[in-house]
Structure formats: structure tokens, C-alpha cells
């Protein structure tokens, strides 16, 4: 028996209760995150990937609520925490960095003020120690002239710099888990690579586990130990990065991979996934992707596919796999 996973999410359901009705953003996802590993969560906008992360942090908006399931941190169900426990938990055990560094820092406080606050909340260091730690963190994330930066306001820094500050703030208390919610989406490509490299580097140094949320499979390909592909708040497919890339077993994943631009194949047209994301107010009975799927069968419309183990490192929730397995079995007996 291996060590207990640092984070276990079991059958998580999160809904937003709006005037239009209940928006089911996350519909029963489960995953385990082992200490020091990198988990990638991939999906298009509205697939529930960010909401599942916000559920773990308990930073949903007023209308959002976890309706079912368990989130176990080191075996403790954090959904049972009260406000005080939760505040002490956020930032010290799990931290998060957000998509848009331009708006994620408070414009009316200095970088130093915000960074020191993150440290002060979770430790009982004195002023000098806090200041020293803040400087150390800025150096660690590769911010030049850290003393000067501490006195500056967010608007005086570039986007890449601000994201580095966000990372410094998130890691200041050495959390066990870092959630990165599309950390590079708002940055330009050269900066994207730098930030990803920095995160990999820091992970090696500090040994935290990372949940990497993105809509861009290409971004996380060589970084993740495991990848989860989400659609309409459910897991379609999960497996090692290699399995997901070279042996995708869900039509949605295949679509995602087809829509990554490749430099090697010059004249190939990109293939978008046809149709629009499903309406989360009225989820279909069967597979949510069925209406956009080329290989949809009758059963896809009627029943939601269970997660089926394709091989040791790979699980997919697609009826096509069941069909394929059945045919293989038939073929096997016939031969």
C-alpha cells in the first residue's frame, strides 16, 4: 500500500444557484493527488476545471456551493471546516495562482504589503523576518531588483513580473499543493515558457504537488504526471500524459489534440471541435459530448458512460471503448 494521497476529491458536485436555475458546473469528479506530483486538468471554457479548483479552496462566489462529495486533505474532509479553519488552511496548505495577473493583485497596495500579508497570516515571524522572507521569495521567483519591487504598486510591473509575484505570494508559506489556474493564458508566448519553467524549477526545489489547470494540452504535455480531461463538469478521460497524447480513448480528447497547432505539419488545417459547449442548466441524460461527437451511438444519448479502465495507466468514459472491447472480445473468440 502506497502513501495516502495528499488530496483526494471524491464525487465532487458543485452548482451555482442563479435566477435562471441551478447551473451544474461540476458533476461528480474524483481524483487523487499524490505528494509532489503534477496533475493536469484540461478542458474548454465552462468545463468545470476552474470551479473544481475553487471548490477545493472554498473560494466560490456567493451563489456557488458544493452540493455533494468529499474533499480530503491528508484524510481530513475540508468541507467540514469552519470559516476560521478554512482561512488558516488557504494559503498555508493549498495556494492558488490565477489566470490574469493584471487583475489578481490589489491595485492600491504595494507588492511588499501584499506579499508580507500572505506571510504574516500563517506564521508568527516578526517584522524583520517577514521582510526577509518576502525578499527571499521575490529572488526565488526571479524578480529583478526585489527591494525596489517591494515598494512598487502592481501597475508599475509587467504581466510576467506580476505573475511571478503571484507565485511568490502563493509559495511564501510552503504549501503542500499549488493550484495553477491557467497561469500562462494571459501572458505572451515567451513569458509563458518562462513561467512554466519557473514553476517546474520551484517544484523541484520545494517539492509541492501541483494541479495545473489549462485549456491548452500543449502547455502541460511534458510537465504532468497525470492528466484529467474534463467536459461538462465530468471526467472524460484520465491517464498519464503519454497515454492521453498518443492513445486518446475519448472522442473529446481526440478533438482537443487535433486542435493543437503543430509546426511539423505545415499545411495541415486545424480541426476545431464542431458545435458549442453543453448548456449546464439542462444537462442531457446521456453523455454530454454526444451532440458534438462524430461517433455517437444510440446508447450515448440514453445513458452516461461509466469510467472504464482501458489499460493500467488509462481510464476513459466513452461508450466507443465498450464497443471496441466487445468487438475485440468477439473477434478473439471467433478467431
Amino acid at each position, binding site marked *: 500500500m502506497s502513501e495516502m494521497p495528499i488530496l483526494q476529491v471524491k464525487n465532487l458536485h458543485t452548482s451555482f444557484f442563479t435566477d435562471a436555475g441551478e447551473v451544474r458546473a461540476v458533476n461528480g469528479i474524483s481524483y487523487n493527488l499524490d505528494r509532489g506530483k503534477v496533475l493536469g486538468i484540461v478542458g474548454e471554457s465552462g468545463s468545470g476545471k476552474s470551479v473544481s479548483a475553487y471548490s477545493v479552496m472554498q*473560494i466560490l462566489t456567493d451563489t456557488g456551493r458544493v452540493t455533494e462529495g468529499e474533499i480530503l486533505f491528508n484524510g481530513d474532509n475540508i468541507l467540514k471546516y469552519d470559516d476560521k479553519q478554512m482561512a488558516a488552511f488557504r*494559503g498555508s496548505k493549498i495556494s*492558488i495562482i490565477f489566470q490574469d495577473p493584471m487583475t489578481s493583485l490589489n*491595485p*492600491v497596495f504595494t507588492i511588499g504589503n501584499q506579499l508580507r500579508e*500572505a506571510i504574516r497570516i500563517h506564521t508568527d515571524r516578526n517584522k524583520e523576518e517577514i521582510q526577509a522572507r518576502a525578499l527571499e521569495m521575490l529572488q526565488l521567483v526571479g524578480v529583478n531588483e526585489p527591494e525596489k519591487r517591494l515598494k512598487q504598486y502592481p501597475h508599475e510591473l509587467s504581466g510576467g513580473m506580476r505573475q511571478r509575484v503571484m507565485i511568490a505570494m502563493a509559495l511564501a508559506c510552503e504549501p503542500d499543493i499549488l493550484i495553477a489556474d491557467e497561469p500562462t493564458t494571459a501572458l505572451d508566448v515567451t513569458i509563458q515558457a518562462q513561467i512554466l519553467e519557473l514553476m517546474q524549477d520551484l517544484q523541484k526545489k520545494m517539492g509541492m504537488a501541483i494541479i495545473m489547470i489549462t485549456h491548452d494540452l500543449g502547455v502541460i504535455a511534458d510537465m504532468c504526471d497525470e492528466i484529467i480531461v474534463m467536459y461538462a463538469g465530468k471526467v472524460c478521460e484520465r491517464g498519464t500524459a503519454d497515454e492521453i497524447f498518443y492513445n486518446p480513448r475519448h472522442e473529446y480528447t481526440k478533438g482537443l489534440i487535433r486542435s493543437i497547432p503543430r509546426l511539423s505539419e505545415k499545411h495541415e488545417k486545424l480541426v476545431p471541435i464542431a458545435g458549442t459547449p453543453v448548456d449546464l442548466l439542462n444537462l442531457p441524460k446521456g453523455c454530454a459530448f454526444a451532440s458534438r461527437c462524430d461517433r455517437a451511438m444510440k446508447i450515448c444519448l440514453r445513458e452516461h458512460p461509466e469510467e472504464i479502465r482501458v489499460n493500467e495507466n488509462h481510464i476513459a468514459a466513452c461508450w466507443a471503448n465498450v464497443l471496441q472491447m466487445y468487438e475485440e472480445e468477439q473477434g478473439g473468440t471467433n478467431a
Partner: protein
Amino acid sequence: MTESDAKKRKMIVLMLLALVLAVMGWIFLPIKSEKILCTVVLALSCGAVFFSNDTGRYVCKRILLALLTILIIAAITFFAMNAIPGGPFSKEKAPSAAVQAVLEERFHLNEPIGTQFRLYLEGLMQGNFGVSTKTGREIATTIFSSFAISAKLGGYAALCAVILGLILGSIAALNRGKLADRIIIFFTTLFVAVPSFIMATLLLLVFCLQLNWFPIFSTDNPSYVLPVIALMLSPMSYITRLTKTSMLDVLGQDYIRTARAKGVKQWKVIFKHALKNALIPVITYVGPMTAYILTGSMVVESVFTTGGLGTKFVQGISNRDYPMIMGTTIFLATLMVTMTLISDLVYKAVDPRIDFN
């Protein structure tokens, strides 16, 4: 970069011009107070050009502009008053020609209008607003004694309006859609909609005359409660609504989520991270509002007969008391300009993104 450089150069040229003018004024103008004024302008222009600190430069520039504004306001008021048919002594029953001549002599009304204006400005620089054509009293004395009353009333009212407005606005924002929010929004809408003279009369009628809770305002026994309430209700309601809107906007911002994710406690998220941002639009309103309340809402003061500056202003107008009207107008303008400057500086202190260049 080049654009801001060009702007800077233009600024420096303008300020040098002001400097030259000030030096010339200092040399050629005969009167002592004018020399003092010139020295002040000189110092300010030097400051505006050579201060290394942005805020210092900005303040110098703004005070120079304020002086110019006040001069222009004085000129407009002066010439507008003179353009009105009739004079301060035109009455139904005209005084005899001899009396008229003596009066005109005394108030320099027989001089050409340019000279009159020059004489008035000279007086102004020495803090002399002239003498009332109605009562013969010094205008400056009247203004300052009545402003003392208005300032006290207005000070309380402005303070209450800001504090209560911020609290109620935050409560409404945090309880959006709930009962507390609805009650607050109902009453604030009501207080914004009901004109202050009706509110003042109503308060006077109910709490003074019917219930006898408060005495009627008199100089021997000043009871500030009702006039303060009448003065503050409308601005308080406005601030409440402003705070609510901006608070709701701020609470939806990404950096609030960041603060929560850091583990900042809920009340600190609201009072540190949200409130300082939510204050920004409120401050722009509070500056001019304070000037307006401080100088005394004329209507409310009349209803309560407080004898404040507002009352004097209205009396001045109905008495055709030219020096009184001039004096109060210039005084109010100065106050307004000062308050706006202060609120701009506070604005800068709260929002570091404001760049005075």
C-alpha cells in the same frame, strides 16, 4: 514618452511666463499686499517647475490655477453685478440726488468701472471685502461670523454623511438582495428624492413643534441636531448608494479572490482589500459635497433660521447688497476650489495609479 516630454516643456514655458509676470508685478506694483501676492506666485511657479517631487509640483500648479480661478470668478461676479440694471440704492422711492451722490462717492460708484474693479481687488488682497451697502458693517466680519455657524453645522453634517453613508453602503452591498439591503435602498432613495426644504420643514414640524424633542434653533440656545440631520440626509443617501455600487463592483474583482485565497479573514478582506478600492469613486463626490455643505445649504439654513452663511447670501441678494454678494461668492469659490484640491490629494493618497503628470 515624447508626448509627455512635450507636455512637460509646455508646462515649464507656462510657469516661466508666470514667473516673469510675477517678477514684473513685484517691481512695478506700488502696494505692499500686491507685492506679497507676487512673492507667493513667484514661489509657487518656482515650486511648480523645480520641485523634484511630483505631488509638490502638482500642488504648486493647482494653487496657482486656483488663484487664477478665483480672480476670474471675482471678475465675472463683479461685471455681472454691474451689468444688472439699477444699482444698490435703486428703490421704489429713489433717494434725493444729493444723497445718491454722497453714497456713490462713499462706495466709489462714481469712478469708472475699471477703477472700481481695481479698487475692489486691492481691498480683496488685504482681506477687505468692503462694507455692506445695506448695514454699513464690514463684509469680512459678517462672513466669518456667519461661516462659523455654517462650518459647525456643515462639519457635523459632512462627517455624519460620510461615516453613515460608508457603513450603510457596505451593509447594503454585503447583504445584496436581502431585507437589510432593501430597507436601506428604500430609505436612501426616499431621502435623495425628497427636496431638502420639505425634509427640513417636516423635521421642524414633527420634532420641534409636535413632539417637542428639540428646541427651535436660536443663537443663544443652538440645537444642531435637526439642521444637521436635514443637511446630511441627502448626501448621506447618495454616498450610501455610491458605496454600495462600488463595493459590489470591487467584491467581484479578481484581487478579492486572491485575498481570500491567501487566507485573509472575511472582515479583513472587506475592510482592508475591498473598502480602500471602493472608496475611490466616493472621494470624488465627498470633496465638492463637503464644500457645499460647509457653506451652508441656503434652504435648510433659512428654514431653521440659523443665521449661517447661506442665510446671509440669500439676504444679500434680496437686499441688492453688492459687496455682500461679491464677498460671499468669492468666499464660496475659494472654499470650493480648496476642497476640490484636498479631495484630489486624498484621491492620490488612496489610489497610487493616479499620476499627476
